[in-house]
């Protein structure tokens, strides 16, 4: 069974310039919480997840927080949850903050011709929810997740 047999081709994507407000509207409207971020030519540049929105509540810019968290001698002084309620955010944040500021740029992808087993292995190894499926040039062709693979396997076995 190949990825192209189980993947879904209709995907909601966002651009790097999509604002926080628009992102929240998409999350409100659709049942999934991971959106591929693509360029004009369809190349995948990142993934923005609902959890990534929490980054705006961090008291310092995301790249500085990332730098600190990589320092093994840094320990969080307060639990992350307190940020959500304590940090002051100006109302303009809704349009000033865009997908590019929030997305995870280390995207693990897979090709259409790879096996579903390989896709499952990547999902589990990297602890992912969604795996973007791309062509040779890195352009988005669809997505595949655990549900799609399970559905494919169950159909093949005649259970579903």
């Amino acid at each position, binding site marked *: 069974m190949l990825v192209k047999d189980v993947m879904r081709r209709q995907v909601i994507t966002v651009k790097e310039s999509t604002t926080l407000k628009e992102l929240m509207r998409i999350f409100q409207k659709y049942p999934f919480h991971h959106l591929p971020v693509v360029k004009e030519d369809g190349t995948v540049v990142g993934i923005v997840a609902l959890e990534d929105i929490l980054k705006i509540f961090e008291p310092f810019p995301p790249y500085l927080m990332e730098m600190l968290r*990589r320092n*093994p*001698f840094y*320990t969080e*002084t307060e639990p992350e949850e307190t940020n959500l309620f304590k940090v002051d955010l100006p109302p303009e944040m809704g349009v000033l903050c865009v997908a590019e500021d929030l997305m995870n740029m280390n995207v693990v992808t897979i090709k259409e011709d790879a096996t579903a087993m390989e896709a499952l292995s990547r999902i589990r190894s990297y602890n992912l929810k969604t795996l973007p499926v791309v062509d040779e040039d890195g352009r988005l062709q669809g997505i595949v997740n655990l549900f799609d693979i399970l559905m494919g396997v169950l159909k093949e076995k005649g259970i579903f």
Partner: protein
Amino acid sequence: MNIYVFVALILLLGFIIGRLLRRIGLTEVLAYLTAGLIIGPVFGVKAPEHFESLITATTLALVGYMVGLSFSFDFLKKMGRKILIILTVEVLITSFVVWGFVYAVTKNLPLAIILGSLAPATAPAGTVAVFRDLRARGTLTNVAIAIVGLDDAAGIIIYSIGLVWVKMLLGGKASILSSLLHPAWEIFGAIALGGGIGAGLSYITRKVRLSSDHIFVISIAIAVLCWGLAEMIGVSTILACMVLGAMLINLNGHIANHSNKLIDSIMTPIFILFFAAIGMEINFSQFVSIWPVVLMYCAGRSVGKIIGCGMGGVLSKSEPKITRYLGIALLNQAGVAVGLAFLATQQLSGYGLGGIIITLMATTTALFQIISPLGTQYAVKRAGEASASNL
């Protein structure tokens, strides 16, 4: 003492004292050192054989590797030229000033060099905690956070160079060729070893499918292997592990990021054991004779940080508030400096310099833990970056 009871005792004591010190705003590193002090010098318990060397090598191999993981190309690009200039100038000036101050009192060049090379590292936790408390926002805060995030790495590099120099001075090698070749081998050999292992690891991890467990086991094994091989061929151990991390993050970012998260999740108990082992080595009987050095080190480090950040700020054409107040905000010292002091103690044990370094660094760390939050607070307020409710 039975090794299992010993380890459990240190972990529990470290945890309990850590909780207490947190309440008064002090770093947990001090708690772990205190746990070692109570078990070792106070109750006279001896660490089991090989405990110290095993825990030091494992901890510093992992720390070096994780610090190296922060050197992704994207990251350095994002960080900007300005921060790189300030960081470089601050680290160099702090080292030189401490070196000068300590030499003026002791006339002991190897001791002055080693203390100078331990001085630049700033503790991230204590500094950032003050920024959070004051809800600091602005360029001074951003530059300070970037620098505390990175100067551990710069500190490790300076330390590696300083240690090579000191060993050379104490070894008494006279020929110019050997005195140049030896440090060059320690440093460039470490870069080649770490780089080679890192490149090999990234190649293999691209070819082989790995689960989280596999990544976890392999990254720990490779970091420790890199340390061991570096020790065997006589190159800088910690620098080799740092280059390994830097190579992996740039050649296989996915595996590197994943391994960073996995290793980070086990660091707390490792740090407790590591700092407790350091605490066990602290010798207070030396304190009476070293207080002038303690004072000069603290004065030199403070002056060096203030002048270094000031000069870095001027050279990078930063805002006046960075030039004036950044150094005062970055006085906190802990973690990596104490860790490197412990490593220096082991590496210089045959040269009669070891014991004093560890007692000195533990004492000065405690002093800076108390003084530095006040400095950070002063800098943030003077720069006008503290939120109104805290003023």
